[in-house]
């Protein structure tokens, strides 16, 4: 039982990752693929942050009266990851907009069907 509950957050991670990856591979719409990518990236957040939590601990802001804090390092890493994620998303969207203007569609198979 503890193998299930003890790793609950991991199961969420796995589920999100599979869903994100599935969207990326299976969809032909370029915009939808980007959303899949965003979900894939968010799946990582839980993988890092959940293990840093200590039950009974508090957010890592030092204050009197608390002695047990959750691990701050994953938070820092994921902050960076979020920022990188939104940067990638913005760039991807810009590309999609340009592709749409150049090809008149954002369906991958239709684009690949068009000759140059």
């Amino acid at each position: 039982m503890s193998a299930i509950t003890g790793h609950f957050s991991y199961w969420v991670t796995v589920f999100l990752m599979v869903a994100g990856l599935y969207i990326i591979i299976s969809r032909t719409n370029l915009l939808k693929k980007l959303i899949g990518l965003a979900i894939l990236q968010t799946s990582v957040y839980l993988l890092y942050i959940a293990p840093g939590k200590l039950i009974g601990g508090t957010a890592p802001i030092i204050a009197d009266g608390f002695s047990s804090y959750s691990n701050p390092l994953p938070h820092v890493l994921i902050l960076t990851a979020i920022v990188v994620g939104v940067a990638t998303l913005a760039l991807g969207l810009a590309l999609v907009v340009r592709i749409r203007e150049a090809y008149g569609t954002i369906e991958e198979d239709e684009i690949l069907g068009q000759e140059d």
Partner: protein
Amino acid sequence: MLEHLPALQVVLPLVAAPLIVLARHRGFAWLATTAVSYLCLVIAILLASRVMEGGAVSYAIGNWPPPWGIEYRVDALSSFVLVLVALTASFVAPYAHRSIAAEVPAERHYILYAMYCLCLAGLLGITITGDAFNVFVFLEISSLAMYVLIALGKRRKALVAAYQYMLMGTVGATFYVIGVGLLYLMTGTLNLADMAERLRAVEDVRPVLAALAFITVGIGLKLALFPLHQWLPNAYAYAPSMVTAFLAATATKVSVYVLLRFYFGVFDPSALFERLPMREVFIALSVAAMLSASLVAFYEQDVKRLFAWSSVAQIGYITLGIGLDNQASLTGSITHLLNHGVTKGAIFVLLGAVALRSGAISVSVASLSGLGRRMPLTAFGLVIAGLSLVGIPGTAGFISKWYLIVGALERGMWWVVAVIVGASIIAVGYVWRVVEAAYLHPAQGATPVRHEAPAGMLAAALGMVILCVYFGIETSFSVGAARDAALLLLGGAR
């Protein structure tokens, strides 16, 4: 000042980019880019000589001792890759001036140069850092810059190529983060050296194996490891010429470096290669890449795509050395990073010159006819670089293939030797198609007028061609440093 070289190596191009954006001036942008590229080369060479004399250099950023702070670590392997990246940059930057003018609208030039600086900073940062997460951050800097650079290509297909590369590259980077996350959960540290030490004490190997798988696939996507190479031919073919040259010579090579670093520096390589059939997998994938991509190249009509496929094959050679996993083969692999980087860089730089003069949006093999008359020096350069690609003795390509063959023989794998030779013969085939078109086919239309590329471009291009020969004859730096690096990876001295 000298002790700050590791930091300056990365910070200089990183600072140049916002300065260029602030100035918004084409001439300044080019000057700054070129100056920074040369400075980086000087720094890289100084660092390499320091490493050769006194062993690895460690630099604690923010003066926080590792593993709490981020450590920069220059050793035999990373200094070698730094030299490769900076060397290519210093040839491509002066060349860019004319090439870009012809291919990209003028108001985007300064952006392109800023992106180029960021990309350079990213690649150098990946190489020099000793911190697993810092690798990811700089990987993203270089990748985002790269996507933009590709998308600036002239044809609309460049956009799609950039999008595809972005999708696969980001999935790769995310996999890498997952892999690093697993390792972090098992060791509690992000510093690579510290991680390697603490990983030995880890009893449960399952997360480590999963991390290995994720990092392999993630970085494999980035370095176009067969069969994860789909993005590469399009990206190379549709990017602006100078971008292709820079990308082909450096980006995949730096990814290979990351893979080497993790395999031999973090995971315990002996346990790794004993427990899993990694060796067999790598050899099989490499062989498949070498043969299939070479064959595709042989039938390709577009010259840039032809050499892009040839890159997929050449990456096969490099990963083959990892799969063979002995000192000779690793020396071969690492030397090939440099030799192939220089060779491919030279080829794409020359093709850029051809594209500039032909004015067409793409260069097909047929359109090369009469090139020997029109642009004799360029055509001659292509022949030399092509020979180096094939691996004719006296050129750079020969040296690294020689070590790979020695490595295969040490393992007693005769059939691998046969594949190396076979793939080289196919390479003779596709290089010959180019040579044949350039020299033997009569030019279409009127008598060809001699019209070489501008002097600056030609000088840079021929400089790289000379390097192809230089590294084929004078091997004390390339092979010497690569051997040190291989020893380091296999746990020897230095």
